[in-house]
């Protein structure tokens, strides 16, 4: 009984301590943001690793998600004789939800896990402490460029995903199933609002970018510096990112589209 309570207390305190470390870590990184200006090439390098190398995955996934949406949407809508609304359905679901959320999940699997493993391994092989020994702040050189590369890449990737996805739905709906092209686009344009939908979608993907990159970088920085510790940190990075993205998506959706 007492042992159980002891364990529960230990876990709770450990969880809060970690949460606190994560926030302090983020503050530390944000405080060192201006260090990025003279080290701009580091950011470019990381945007290549995090963003450019994710393009193919994001584009292909967006295409297939859009095509599936077109196919499934057509099957349901044609029962009601409302095939013309396919454009609205595809665009609204991609812009409001699937674009930011699926991109964030793919991004955490493709880029977030790599960031965690890389930083974790740097810690395990004592590269980070080596930098500290040379009076070089690892937060400035290693963390900040990666954090900003992730945050900047996410909205761009989500935009690509959404745009390609809508064309995937267009190919299936208009190209294969014969939905009228004019009403596909015009109903979409009449329903999708720039401020309400597109801007909120960008805000969502920006928030998810912050969350996913923050978790990935922190898990790597906070990893137990052993082979097993890095592997666990990588798993946690992906799992926590998924939970955090889906959970915050509900909150954001309630705030943005709630009324």
């Amino acid at each position, binding site marked *: 009984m007492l042992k159980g309570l002891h364990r529960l207390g230990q876990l709770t305190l450990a969880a809060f301590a970690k949460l606190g470390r994560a926030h302090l870590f983020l503050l530390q990184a944000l405080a060192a943001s201006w260090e990025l200006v003279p080290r701009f090439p580091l950011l*470019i390098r990381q*945007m290549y690793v995090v*963003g450019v190398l994710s393009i193919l995955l994001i584009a292909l996934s967006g295409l297939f998600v859009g095509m599936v949406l077109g196919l499934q949407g057509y099957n349901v809508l044609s029962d009601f004789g409302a095939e013309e609304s396919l454009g609205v359905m595809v665009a609204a679901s991609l812009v409001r939800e699937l674009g930011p959320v699926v991109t964030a999940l793919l991004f955490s699997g493709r880029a977030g896990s790599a960031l965690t493993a890389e930083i974790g391994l740097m810690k395990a092989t004592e590269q980070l402490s080596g930098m500290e020994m040379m009076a070089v702040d690892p937060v400035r050189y290693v963390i900040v460029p990666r954090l900003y590369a992730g945050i900047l*890449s996410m909205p*761009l990737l989500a*935009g690509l995903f959404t*745009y390609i996805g809508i064309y995937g739905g267009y190919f299936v709906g208009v190209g294969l199933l014969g939905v009228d092209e004019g009403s596909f686009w015009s109903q979409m*344009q009449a329903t999708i609002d*720039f401020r309400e939908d*597109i801007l909120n979608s960008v805000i969502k993907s920006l928030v998810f970018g912050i969350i996913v990159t923050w978790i990935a970088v922190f898990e790597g920085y906070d990893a137990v510096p052993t082979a097993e510790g890095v592997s666990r940190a990588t798993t946690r990075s992906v799992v926590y990112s998924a939970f955090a993205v889906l959970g915050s998506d509900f909150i954001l959706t309630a705030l943005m589209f709630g009324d």
Partner: protein
Amino acid sequence: MYMSNSRVIEIWVGLFVAMGLAALFLLAMQVSNLSEFRESDKGYRLLAKFQNVGTLKVRAPVKIAGVLVGRVADIRLDQEHYQAIVELRIDPSYRLPDDTIASIYTSGLLGEQYIALEPGGSPDYLKDGDEIEISQSALVLEELIGKFLVKSAEKSGSDEK
């Protein structure tokens, strides 16, 4: 031509950022209603009064013979006569005679409401700020059902006599 590794990376990142921004820009221009905002300031204003506008919304289409000629710019209440004043923005390439009739119709059974204009034969045309004199209000389902019930009750009453 020899290109250093970092130069290739920079080009790729530049391409990535350009593609991402282009996707967001195209989303805004092609997918959302921003494509219409550019045109919404153009065109001339017409006013129409209705007893009831039903569920007509701002930016609802204005059509002649099913062809889109403008949008609803504003809906407000006339405090004096308690009528709805609907402001229409009409594409300047369309000219309307001053005996045009404005009606509120529903597209499809459950669709959105829009304004249909039926031009008459007058030689004079409506100018910016003019009011459309003849209008036909939206059909409200409850009123229709109410009328129908009253009629069928009268009928069954007269049958019994």
